[in-house]
Each structure stands twice: as C-alpha cells, then as structure tokens.
C-alpha cells in the first residue's frame, strides 16, 4: 500500500543502512585479511577464523558465556523479588523507587566501573567494613578481580531487568496471590508457586536481556578485571583498536552473535506455549 510505503521509507532506509549493512559488512570482513594501516584488505580468507581455533579463544568464549549466564541469574534473582515487592507498594512509593532505579542508568559504564574501583580499593570503605565485620582478615583491594567485575555488571544491568519485569508484575492480579493464601499458602510459598509461574515469559526475557548486555559489556571487565579474565567483548575491542586487526575482531563478533542467537533460541523454546 502506498501509505504504508510512505510512512516506512525513512525508518526502512535508516535502519537498513545502520543495522543491516553494518552487520553484513561485519560478516564480510570476518572473511578478509587485516590491514595494519587501514581497516581490511578485500580478499576472501578463513585466516581470521582459523586464528580463533585455539584454547585461548575457546576459553574466553566459554568464560564470557558462563559469566553472562551467571551474572544474569544473579541479576534476575535480585531483580525479580525486588520488582515484586516494589509493585506491592502504593503508587507514590513506586514512582520514587522507579526514578531512583532509573537514576542508576545515569552513570555511564565508565563511571560505573570507576566508582566500583573506588569502593572496592584498599582505602575504600567497603573492604574496611568487611574487615571490621571479620569477614576478611585484613583490608585488601578487591579490584582488579572477578567480584568487582560482577558487582559493576549487576549494577549496570539491574535497571533493564527491572524494567522488563515491571509490566507483568504490576499487572499481576492481587486476587491470584490472595486466593493462594486462603487456600493455605504462606506468602513465601505463594510467591514461589504462583507469582513465578505467572511471570515465566518476562522472567526469561529479563534473563536473556541481562545475559546479552553482560556479554557485550566492554568497560567493566576491562577496567575492573584482571587481564587473564578479560571477556570476549574486551578481546574484540582490543583486536579492533589496539591490535589493528579488524577481521579478527569481526570473526570474534560473528562467534558472539552465534552464541547470542543460540541464547535467543533457547529462550524462545523455554517460553513456548505448551
């Protein structure tokens, strides 16, 4: 229809140009050769992919995937009960919490990483607190380290998880939980066997979004992590910028995309209508 075409021309042109074309380019470049002075040499070769067939890359890929899944699990484990409790509050309180939560988005990933660096450093308050509580023997810097990376990532991803879960939990009919209570379920059991099954779809969506965002996170692992445990995102960034090896970066990106598609496929299967 003419009207549809008229409306969609602008978005179609821009989106195809800025999403589709770069993606196809990326694919093409992954089969090209690196050019130290420029970007890439237009030949067709599998060198970039062959360069990935080593333990190091496989290790980084698996590590990144595992970390993404685990951090996503932690984020959703915190975010789901949090969103549930928040949606039981009165409207005013909800707005306050939402604005507060969205404020944490106002810290760019750079400052996010930086602030965790300060907090978890030797002089930072947090380790002194741990020492005072007797959890650690004496205050030592927790960064660079895996814990710091995780804390920073959870912080960055939590608002997205909450926003994904919010519609379903806000619209959850209160009678459903009340019915469970009058049938004999304690509030905790009602949460487990009524609220969670009712929100299966959004739960999976929140998990997938968190995992994908973590997978693509560049700054936190770079700044807060040790070089041995640098994630795939960092390796890709390094290859492109410092290593001047764009085909390699492209090849790694394609592998990451494959991983993300698998994740998407599994989540679609998990939320299929029985």
């Amino acid at each position, binding site marked *: 229809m003419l009207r549809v075409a008229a409306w969609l021309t602008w978005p179609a042109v821009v989106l195809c140009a800025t999403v589709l074309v770069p993606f196809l380019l990326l694919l093409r470049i992954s089969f090209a050769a690196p050019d130290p002075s420029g970007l890439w040499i237009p030949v067709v070769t599998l060198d970039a992919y062959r360069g990935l067939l080593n333990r190091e890359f496989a290790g980084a890929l698996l590590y990144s995937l595992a970390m993404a899944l685990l951090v996503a699990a932690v984020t959703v484990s915190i975010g789901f009960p949090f969103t549930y409790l928040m949606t039981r509050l009165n409207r005013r309180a909800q707005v306050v919490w939402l604005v507060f939560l969205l404020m944490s988005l106002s810290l760019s990933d750079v400052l996010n990483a930086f602030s965790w660096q300060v907090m978890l450093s030797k002089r930072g308050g947090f380790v002194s607190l741990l020492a005072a509580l007797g959890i650690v023997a004496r205050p030592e810097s927790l960064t660079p380290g895996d814990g710091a990376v995780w804390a920073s990532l959870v912080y960055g991803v939590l608002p997205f998880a909450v926003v994904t879960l919010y519609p379903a939990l806000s619209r959850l*009919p209160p*009678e*459903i939980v*009340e*019915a*469970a*209570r*009058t*049938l*004999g*379920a*304690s*509030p905790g*059991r*009602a949460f487990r066997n*009524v609220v969670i*099954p*009712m929100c*299966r779809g959004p739960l999976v969506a929140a998990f997938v979004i968190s995992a994908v965002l973590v997978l693509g996170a560049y700054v936190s692992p770079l700044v807060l992590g040790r070089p041995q445990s640098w994630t795939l995102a960092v390796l890709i960034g390094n290859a492109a910028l410092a290593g001047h090896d764009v085909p390699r970066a492209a090849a790694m990106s394609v592998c990451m995309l494959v991983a993300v598609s698998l994740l998407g496929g599994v989540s679609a299967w998990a939320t299929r209508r029985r």
Partner: protein
Amino acid sequence: MTPSGLELRGLRKSYGTYLAVDDVSLQVPAGQFVCFLGPSGCGKTTLLRMIAGLEAPTAGRLLLNGLDLTATPAHQRNFAMVFQALALFPFLTVEENIAYSLRLRNVARQERQRRVSELLALIKLSDCGSRRVEQLSGGQRQRVAIARALAQEPMLFLLDEPLSALDAKLRDHMQIELRLLQQKLRLTTILVTHDQREALTLGDSIVVLADGRVQQIGSPSDIYRRPANRFVAGFIGQCNLMEAEVLDSRHLSVWGRVVEVAAVPGGLIKGTPVTFSIRPEDIHVVPREDAASNALPGRVSFAREVGERVELRIDCNGREVIGAASPADWAALAGSADAVSVQLRAGAGTVLTC
C-alpha cells in the same frame, strides 16, 4: 465437616481517615448460609476480607468456636474464599487448580486424586479435569473456583459477589446450585452481594450493611416485612416510604388522611413525624367510588406490564405511590384511571422512626 460458629466483636477498619467498617458485631451460627447485603462501598467486601485474613482489622476481634483468630495469618485459618474475579491459576489445569490446597498440605497422591474426582463429580465437570482454565466457559470456571475452595474442607466458606459476572439465567441456576451444595455439605457460608434478590433467595439470614455499619440482621422475611429503618426498607424490594404523623397507638395521619396501622412503636406522642413504609403488593388500587377506609385518593400516572403483573404509579396530590395489579384488575380499572384510590391493606406496612 464439623460446622463452626463465627463471631465478630466490634470489628473496625479504617484507611487513614476513611472508615470502611465501623464497629460490626455479629454471630454466624454453624451450618448457616449468611448473606452480607448492601450497596457498593458499604464495607461488606472489606468485612469479608477481614474474616478471610486478607486485611488486618484496625480494632475488634474475630472468633471461631470461641478461638480467637484475629492475629492468625490467612493461610492458617482454613477459610476458603471464592473471589469475584475467580482468580483461577491460569498456568494449572482444572484438576491441578482444585488439588492446589491439598498439595500444600502434603496430602498423599492417591487421596488427592480421589478427592479431586469427588469434587469434579460434585460440580458435574468430571470430564474437564485436564483442561486449562482458558478453555472453560464462565459458568464452568465459577464451578471450578467453588470446587477449589471446597477441596481443603474449610471451616468457613466465603464468597465475594461470585455470581455478579454471570448472565441472569445462569445466575439463577447457580444460586440454586450453591444453596443445594451448602445444604448438602452443611458448610457455614458467608456470601457478599449487592443484589437483594440474591440475598433473599439464598440466605438463612441476611446482614444488611450501609456506611460500614450493620443496619439490620434477620431472616429474609423479617428483613422484607419488618425493615428496621428507612435504608433497609428502601433497599430491599420495592417500597413506598410516606411521611406521616402519629395520631395514637393505632393511627397515623398520612398525607392528611387517617390510616390504621398494625402498631405504632411505643412511647411516641401525638404529632411525632415518622415514616410509613408499605410494599406495592400490600396496596390495592381501586376505583375511587369503591374505596373503603385506609385509602388515599389519586390518579394513575403510569402503567406497564411486567410479565404476569402490571406495575402502576399513582399520583396522590403530587406524591408518587408504587402499586401493582393483576392484568385482569387493571383491565377492570382502566376506565376510571383518573380517579382511583390507593387502598392500604389493614395491618400491612411498618412504621419507621429513622
């Protein structure tokens, strides 16, 4: 199921400055079917939710068979509730919904299945067990909600306007089914409704509520024939409320005419303003020349046939009286519709002081 008696003492619920339930005290004897009746916002649902344990009372106590349950949380009270929105679990099948409370109590599988089949037979949905909730009709879902509530063999059966979403015919049918079920199981039941016909049909006793307060408690015929105040008289059925003055212990002056009544409440002196309440069926509309005593003259201003009777509005000097007549009587009356008399049946009607 052992029948149990519920007692409410001085129950109160306020939300900030808004008082939803104000000092309600009543008793529900074991095995009875009680209806909480009142207009929207009268506090009946809040009262029911306090009994269920879903709201904490601001003041007052709640006892079952003498045991104080005020502080007991909802999931430990064993009071089953059917919600207005039904609240069936969409992610479980019909069988699983019904079995929910049994699973929570760790009832053995065989016993669970036996009980579920029993209940499915009771609600006549034996072959719908494995269906999902969305595949059922409104009436079927209603029955599943009831079966789910009964599975735990509750001490008290609570229903919050359960039939309001059903169409008229289905509602009538379900009312009878509910009543039969309750009688068969001898379950102490409280049903909240704003439909007075429903309350009059179902209840052994009715609690009429308005503005968070109990207006009257009594059997359906008590409530109907001897309303305690203007509100109850006006809310239940159709009613004529006429301003009158006391003349003596048996007579009132209604709109200037002397009317004999069954009894005037004791201690009222002559001239006290009261309200005389009389139902349309206790009024006989006759041609003026046939009128006897206890009659108010007027003119028929409106008539409509409603099924097997004719509803009439009679204009008595600017004031409206609602009356009824059989089609035959109306036909006989038609000629003299402009000059009729409203004949009040001797001994009918109630004198209300508030």
